[in-house]
């Protein structure tokens, strides 16, 4: 009997090379006393005429008798191969049995050859099945690695997206992030900043998978750090760019929009590092928030243009990534910026902007479309005057912001008086409320904001069926109402108490309820008048 070659190799997925590499290891006949040493397989190149010869050969080939200008043939001859039995399955050479000289030193008989041919006819398909199984196993391993890489990328990404969005009185912030199967480099962030400002980020790292996710996490951390210190959006992007540049992998960069919102004034200052332009929906239409700047990570020392827009009550902003505009419909048309802008323009107040865009996008791509890229949106809406606080707190009659300057409490008093004019409060009630508002505002400006001009006092007047509430919010730390001792006029006249210290005493006497609440970003004193029907003049 003859020995089979020990291994077969076949290049995968390269039909152009049609490489049927055959092993040329030769072992002697079964009776071999001493088999020749194992030899390296002989590769048959794709242009080697031996390949075509073997492929079309219908039986065992006498190597010695073969005359071809073939490197592989020369190798086979040099290796002492006498007989080659091509293993052909479905017209493709998948291996060769190479046999050395018979140990008996006789030539291979026709029986030998018949046996070998039969063997080849059965071995070839079996070998092919074996090869296919191996290919599939190899593919499965690759796929598994790919999947686990995707998982890692997803994990990194999800870890670095905000777990929750900050509550912002008077504003609605929403975010949407849906990664494509092969996770892209999208990210967004909402960064609470000092003095009631909030930073908004939407960005996109070129490339996908783990590398993109790592660059994304680095960018996000740098942005967070710079945002706290620098505030000005152009400076922040400039700094992050300089920090990213040295370590940026080749051919990668980050597009990023960064905006800083002053919640009280609605002023949004922004800079853009080559990211998709956000849209603002106003009462008059849709504006684009354009500012010039190169993507991050390409070149150090870049400057980023800084622009600003003021968001009026009812206005909303859509920050987005290119996953939306670059989605395709079944005819391979792109969703595109004009369609997105149009979608924003037609959005009504009843449905969230994010839902509106998603609905429009789904209608465009069709139901079975695979998502091509990450889709990210952050929306920021300034509440329209009415309905901000919901049914619980009733109607908003006024919302105003005052800078902390001595005397500005008069402005607060006048505004509140105007706001409640339609309620027909009895004169004494109104006067008491005005005094309480004045005192609360003074308190907020002095104790909460320390008369700092960058710290405004926010005043909201809310009206429900049986309550009128005025909320005075400053940017101060959580604190107890300053009530060192209740004012005692005699003690004051005798000099045992300071003449001052009437403010909170008065407030509590002037209104039906006074509540204070401290939150992370401010301290609120709420003044309440209970309204028990028309014309009622409380206690």
């Amino acid at each position, binding site marked *: 009997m003859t020995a089979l070659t020990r291994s077969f190799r076949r290049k995968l997925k390269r039909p152009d090379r049609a490489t049927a590499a055959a092993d040329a290891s030769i072992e002697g006949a079964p009776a071999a006393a001493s088999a020749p040493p194992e030899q390296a397989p002989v590769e048959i190149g794709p242009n080697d005429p031996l390949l075509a010869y073997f492929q079309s050969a219908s039986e065992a080939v006498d190597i010695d008798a073969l005359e071809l200008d073939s490197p592989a043939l020369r190798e086979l001859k040099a290796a002492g191969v006498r007989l080659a039995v091509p293993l052909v399955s479905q017209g493709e050479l998948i291996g060769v049995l190479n046999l050395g000289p018979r140990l008996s030193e006789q030539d291979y008989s026709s029986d030998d050859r018949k046996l070998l041919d039969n063997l080849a006819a059965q071995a070839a398909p079996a070998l092919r099945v074996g090869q296919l199984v191996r290919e599939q196993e190899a593919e499965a391993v690759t796929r598994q690695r790919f999947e686990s890489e995707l998982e890692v990328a997803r994990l990194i990404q999800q870890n670095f997206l905000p777990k929750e969005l900050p509550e912002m009185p008077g504003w609605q912030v929403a975010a949407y992030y849906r990664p494509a199967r092969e996770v892209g480099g999208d990210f967004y962030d909402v960064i609470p900043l000092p003095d009631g400002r909030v930073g908004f980020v939407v960005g996109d790292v070129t490339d996908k998978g783990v590398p993109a996710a790592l660059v994304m996490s680095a960018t996000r951390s740098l942005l967070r750090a710079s945002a706290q210190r620098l505030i000005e959006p152009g400076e922040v992007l400039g700094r992050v760019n300089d920090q990213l540049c040295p370590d940026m992998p080749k051919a990668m960069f980050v597009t990023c929009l960064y905006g800083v919102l002053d919640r009280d004034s609605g002023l949004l200052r922004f800079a853009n590092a080559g990211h998709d332009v956000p849209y603002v929906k106003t009462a008059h239409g849709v504006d684009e928030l354009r500012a010039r700047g190169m993507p991050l990570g390409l070149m150090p020392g870049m400057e980023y243009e800084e622009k600003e827009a003021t968001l009026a009550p009812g206005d909303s902003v859509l920050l987005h990534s290119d996953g939306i505009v670059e989605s395709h419909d079944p005819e391979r048309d792109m969703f595109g910026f004009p369609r997105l802008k149009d979608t924003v323009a037609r959005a009504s107040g009843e449905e969230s902007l994010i839902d509106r865009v998603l609905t429009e996008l789904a209608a465009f791509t069709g139901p079975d479309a695979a998502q091509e890229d990450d889709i990210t949106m952050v929306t920021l809406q300034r509440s329209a005057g009415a309905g901000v606080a919901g049914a619980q707190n009733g109607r908003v009659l006024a919302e105003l912001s005052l800078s902390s300057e001595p005397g500005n409490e008069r402005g607060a008093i006048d505004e509140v008086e105007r706001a409640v004019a339609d309620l027909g409060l009895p004169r004494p009630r109104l006067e008491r409320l005005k005094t309480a508002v004045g005192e609360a505002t003074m308190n907020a400006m002095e104790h909460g904001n320390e008369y700092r001009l960058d710290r405004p006092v926010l005043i909201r007047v809310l009206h429900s069926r049986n309550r009128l509430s005025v909320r005075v919010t400053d940017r101060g730390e959580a604190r107890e109402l300053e009530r060192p001792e209740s004012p005692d006029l005699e003690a*004051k006249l005798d000099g045992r108490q300071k003449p001052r210290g009437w403010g909170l005493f008065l407030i509590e006497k002037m209104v039906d309820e006074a509540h204070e609440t401290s939150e992370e970003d401010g301290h609120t004193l709420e003044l309440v008048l209970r309204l028990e029907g028309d014309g009622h003049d409380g206690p």
Partner: protein
Amino acid sequence: MTVHELEVSVRKEGGGAVVALAGELNASAAEALDAAYAEAIAGGAGHVVLDFERADYINSTGIALIVGLLAQARAQALEVRARGLSDHYREIFEITRLSDFMTIEGKEHA
């Protein structure tokens, strides 16, 4: 917002001095009030009448100024009266018990 300075004028009335306050009685009024009081007692007034008829705004700091003035007057055994208070400020003078230490002149005061 501009701070309206308190305008103060002092005139004699019988044996006393009338200090008429016009505008806002707040922190910025301290100097004017001090000066007016000094002028009033310099004229040898037997009592001082604070006329709030044209004082359209009195805040807690203004109250504190009045307390300070009252303490000074008490030390000098000088009577202080209040005149022309609106119902609202009269209520505040009562709540703060200022009305216990000064005579509140004017209509229908109980």
